[in-house]
């Protein structure tokens, strides 16, 4: 009797053990609270400077060798485009987009450039089950489309609605998004194409920590000009690209309700229970089994003997 019991217990534990090996324990906990690489690069975007010329869109198109746009880049009618009640967003053919927002208090509209914000702790990265994404020490969030399975979880996870998908590709549909011009420029220490092309220097390229100081200095130096908030300093754990604005950020279409902590923090509670279930459940349920069947046959393989119990 005891022999069978022990063997069964071992069998059950082994099943649990194999499951443990698959558990996402190591990396989940190692994720800790990562605040970005110390010398990571970033971009400060000053919305007060943008005039909506769309030169950055053209520069991005050229640098990333994207397909021909539907309309010329000096066609400003795109600002009136509305899809499903929404302004334009990044697509698989346009990694950056400039939108126009009408403000409540002033006649002058506000223009906002949208692209990947290159989060310190990116939700896309942590949601990817093939680990396609990478946050480089230079600060870019890049991805390896050769391993992309196409689950599109990163699109669900991105709090800024950035990654897009080449839905119309038959054989090789993949995720597409801004990579901070990593391959062609950032790797060599050069600013991305959009930053360099901007006539108004809406964007300033530099080390994130230096730029953060400058952002606060600009707010301080120009009393009354800016809203006293750097969008992206704290949002979702901090972003590589961050914004200062003369108008409240919600009027410029920003999601001002985003958590201050990285998206992955929401998931950590759940990930923490995984190893618990994996280690405790086998013993617990085997124990239940032994208790529940105490004194009875430990029956299986001989379940015909239980046929008559059906009555109840």
């Amino acid at each position, binding site marked *: 009797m005891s022999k069978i019991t022990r063997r069964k217990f071992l069998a059950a534990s082994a099943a649990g053990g194999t499951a443990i090996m698959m558990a996402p324990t190591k990396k989940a906990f190692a994720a800790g609270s990562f605040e970005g690489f110390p010398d990571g690069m970033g971009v400060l975007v000053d919305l007060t400077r943008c005039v909506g010329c769309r030169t950055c869109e053209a520069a991005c198109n050229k640098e990333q060798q994207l397909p021909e746009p539907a309309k010329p*880049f000096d066609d400003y009618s795109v600002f009136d485009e509305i899809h499903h009640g929404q302004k334009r967003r990044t697509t698989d053919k346009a990694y950056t987009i400039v939108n126009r927002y009408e403000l409540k208090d002033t006649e002058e509209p506000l223009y906002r450039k949208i692209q990947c914000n290159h989060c310190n702790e990116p939700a896309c990265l942590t949601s990817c089950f093939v680990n396609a994404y990478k946050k480089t020490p230079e600060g870019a969030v890049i991805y390896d489309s050769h391993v992309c399975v196409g689950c599109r979880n990163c699109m669900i996870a991105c709090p800024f609605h950035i990654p897009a998908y080449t839905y119309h590709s038959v054989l090789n549909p993949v995720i597409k998004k801004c990579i901070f011009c990593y391959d062609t420029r950032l790797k060599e220490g050069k600013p991305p194409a959009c930053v360099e092309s901007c006539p108004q220097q809406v964007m300033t390229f530099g080390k994130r920590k230096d730029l953060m100081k400058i952002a606060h200095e600009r707010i301080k130096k120009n009393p009354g000009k800016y809203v006293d908030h750097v969008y992206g300093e704290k949002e979702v754990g901090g972003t590589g690209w961050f914004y200062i604005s003369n108008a409240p950020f919600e009027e410029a279409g920003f999601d001002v309700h985003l958590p201050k902590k990285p998206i992955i923090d929401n998931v950590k509670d759940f990930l923490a229970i995984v190893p618990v279930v994996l280690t405790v459940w086998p013993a617990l349920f085997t124990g239940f089994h032994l208790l529940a069947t105490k004194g009875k046959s430990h029956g299986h393989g001989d379940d015909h003997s239980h046929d008559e119990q059906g009555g109840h």
Partner: protein
Amino acid sequence: MVNAGKHLMTGLGVLLLSAILAVSCYAMDYPDEVEIDSLANLYEAVVFDHAMHVDATENCSECHHHTTGSGVANDYCAKCHDGKEEMDSVACQDCHSADPVSPENLHNPKPGYSYHNDQPNLKAAYHLNCVGCHQEVDGPTGCEDCHAKTEAGEKFYHSGEFAPKESAHSSGH
């Protein structure tokens, strides 16, 4: 048009040189025209009618901060400078680098100029100054109001003869 490039280059050199010489010699001496070519790839160089802008503005300091000896318009500059003294550097490009802002020159462009950090580069200095003011006084603000696009520019913007062909289906969203 044939020799346009050559003309531009020489013209530019002469003009800028004379501009620098002119302003550094006499206080109220200034160039009537300045040719600006920092975007000369996508756009033709712009001939800036300096004389007209001198007439149109009340004070040189509206554009030249505190360097022209005619006062100072910006409160931030006024903390250190009274603007009564004419500086050696008056032309935009003397302070605003034509090089793009880089992580290295982000903070202090020159030693000792610790409050001159966060300077826009030359291209941005022009645009921020010009467009900012034009918006206020209803001056021209469209790109091609000041610049004529080159062929390279049309290619870059996919406009003009490089405009996308009318396609039946739009790109979706």
